[in-house]
């Protein structure tokens, strides 16, 4: 067993880089949106074989056991090469695994983790509902304990990648009497269960990545409850640091900026002083976003907790990204509207897909408005 954490940072970086450059499919680099699972599966299976599928899991559960510092390098190298699908894999590997390790029973860990690790089960996250978005704790999908099973009724929505998933981890209401956060339970559900209907929802970028999942008396065994009854809110909120810092990574903005640069070259825009002024402004926004990211990454590296001020990074990251993609669309003009998704050559650089895809970054990981609420209430201590 390799002790990655004892390796020097540069050697580790080189080894990760070498593996990615030699093995990641060239045609899947820097995709404008998340590919379907079938497309990315060969790469994920290579990671599985290599033992690199779960870099953040402890070694005893088949992970690489990377320290935050090494993990950031690992993610950094994936980002640099334009590796698709978040930075750590799928929701099962990214989120559910660490939650089970922390809150699951011995039986659950033994039964579920090996399959998650080998992508034998593919997981999606069932949190949002039609009437519980930003106000997630108001969720009303209900689970009633009936003998050794829960019967679940309700609707989950905006569930990413549900069409590709075999299972869903979800939070449901199991008690309506107390504070709304207190009557929530964390469950696991096989999507092949009778009563489960998954319907894809086409997004404005033209892909069908997120879904509506209807639950009509769908039953799941009591042994699929993670943590205690009515303690699901705590389980679901307990994201580890690197999962929270992931969406604030400047990589997506860097990628967008590189495309802006490519577009500018194609169009000869660097001769236009007006363009250069705005380009320089975005370059500086990106440089300073990176400085903020490095600050939070350093906190993680030193093992210090991340506070509510992490919303600063989330807002800077998502809004810088949008400014870059908006500017790119503006300068690409009419021509940019007739380009095939992902096209990057012959004066035709696709500016439309990044623009449309990035509409989601100020919504999906908590809306910008919610993050501003968090800063004003919990960081600046303004009255509620």
């Amino acid at each position: 067993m390799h002790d990655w954490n004892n390796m020097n940072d540069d050697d580790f970086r080189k080894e990760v880089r070498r593996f990615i450059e030699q093995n990641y499919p060239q045609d899947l680099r820097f995709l404008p949106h998340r590919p379907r699972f079938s497309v990315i599966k060969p790469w994920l299976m290579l990671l599985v074989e290599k033992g690199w599928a779960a870099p953040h899991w402890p070694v005893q559960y088949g992970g690489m056991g990377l320290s935050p510092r090494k993990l950031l390098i690992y993610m950094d190298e994936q980002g640099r090469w334009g590796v698709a699908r978040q930075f750590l894999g799928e929701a099962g590997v990214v989120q559910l695994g660490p939650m089970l390790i922390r809150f699951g029973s011995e039986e659950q860990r033994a039964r579920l983790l090996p399959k998650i690790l080998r992508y034998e089960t593919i997981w999606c996250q069932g949190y949002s509902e039609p009437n519980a978005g930003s106000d997630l704790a108001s969720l009303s999908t209900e689970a009633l304990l009936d003998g050794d099973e829960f019967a679940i009724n309700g609707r989950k929505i905006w569930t990413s990648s549900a069409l590709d998933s075999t299972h869903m981890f979800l939070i449901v209401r199991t008690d309506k009497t107390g504070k709304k956060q207190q009557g929530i339970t964390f469950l696991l559900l096989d999507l092949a269960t009778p009563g489960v209907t998954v319907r894809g929802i086409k997004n404005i970028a033209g892909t069908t990545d997120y879904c509506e999942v209807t639950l009509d008396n769908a039953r799941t065994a009591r042994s699929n409850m993670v943590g205690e009854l009515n303690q699901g809110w705590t389980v679901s909120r307990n994201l580890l640091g690197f999962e929270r810092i992931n969406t604030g990574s400047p990589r997506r903005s860097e990628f967008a900026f590189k495309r802006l640069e490519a577009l500018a070259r194609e169009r000869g825009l660097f001769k236009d002083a007006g363009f250069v002024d705005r380009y320089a402004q975005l370059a500086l926004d990106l440089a300073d976003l990176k400085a903020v990211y490095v600050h939070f990454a350093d906190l993680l590296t030193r093992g210090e907790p991340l506070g509510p001020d992490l919303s600063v990074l989330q807002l800077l990251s998502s809004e810088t990204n949008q400014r870059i993609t908006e500017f790119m669309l503006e300068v690409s003009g009419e021509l940019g509207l007739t380009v095939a998704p992902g096209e990057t050559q012959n004066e035709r650089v696709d500016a439309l897909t990044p623009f449309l895809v990035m509409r989601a970054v100020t919504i999906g990981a908590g809306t910008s408005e919610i993050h501003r609420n968090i800063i004003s209430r919990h960081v600046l201590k303004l009255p509620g």
Partner: protein
Amino acid sequence: MTDSLPAASSEDSADSGELQERLALLRNSASRYTAGDVHVKRARALRGTQPGFDRDAWRQMAELGWLGTLIPERFGGVGLGCTEMAVICEALGRALLPEPVTAAAVLAGGVLLYGDNETLKAELAPALAAGTLIPALAWRESVHDTDMLAVETRAEQTPRGVKLYGSKCLIIGGAAADGLIVSAQSSGGIGLYWVPGAAAAPGLSYRELPDGRASAELVMSGVEVPAAHCVAGPGAASAALERAYDEALVMASAELLGLSTRALEITLEYLRTRVQFGKPIGSFQALQHRAADLYIQQRMCRHSLDEVLAALQRPDLAAEERGALASRIKARCSEASLRITRDAIQMHGAMGFADECDVGLYLKRALTLAAWLGGALLHRRRYARLALKETTA
């Protein structure tokens, strides 16, 4: 007054323990000296007066070692770097001290130290560190107002030295300077010349800056400078000017960060206490989100400054890279400080528009410092020239 804004301090950079300890000591001593609003009151009272600052305060800052922070020990200074100086400058900005520390100890002191006249350094630098001599740099000319190296002032050779002809403007800290360092074209290229106050006096006039401090203008028609007062000859002057300029940009940025932080704290306190419609106005989401945006700006300045200061410690830093870093942080802090102080006025409502309200002083200091040595637009362009030239060439 304690720092009430919850912000990650610079302490979290990955620097050595020794440096962190030193910075913590400096931070303590700076916050002790600038505690309360005594300096804000001084700044208010000194507006529009000559010289616009206080010799006693200057001496106290010398005793604290602040004026000699960047001066090597062999010249009577403390021999520290920009990272340490930035702690002091941030505290000065925070408390709105009217003394021109950055202009004298960083900009003018810098060209002196980076010049090539060791004898003159040995004479002037210890006095600067001791607080008995205040120098100012006269580089700016009305026509070429942004490029330090576009110098039209002439230094004509005489048997004893040079005679200076030309005019300079916007000399910050020039109003009470004990002498000016003047840039001029000599036969061999740009030189820097020490002109003691008495020699400069006949050609000096003053203009008030938005923050009530004075800037000097200087007309020279044959000011005599002995050869021994050449601060830097053509071999060293341009590099000295550029380095001191870059370091002054970073220190002005630290001042801007300090004043922005304080202006935001004052505003947050107002939002928590001012009641309208039966509630503190800070409970209204429109104002909460506005405050959150200002805080984001402040944090961006903070972390960007930390990164720039860490990079400035690198011994192999090339001049162009240094220039790009300095312009990056000056652009950021200029823009953010103006936004924060403008919004501070807005969120104080009619009270913010009143001269008696301190946020106006913060806005006006931000206006002065943001423009000093070039504002956001100028420095974004300089950054593009220096750092993005591969793409923009």
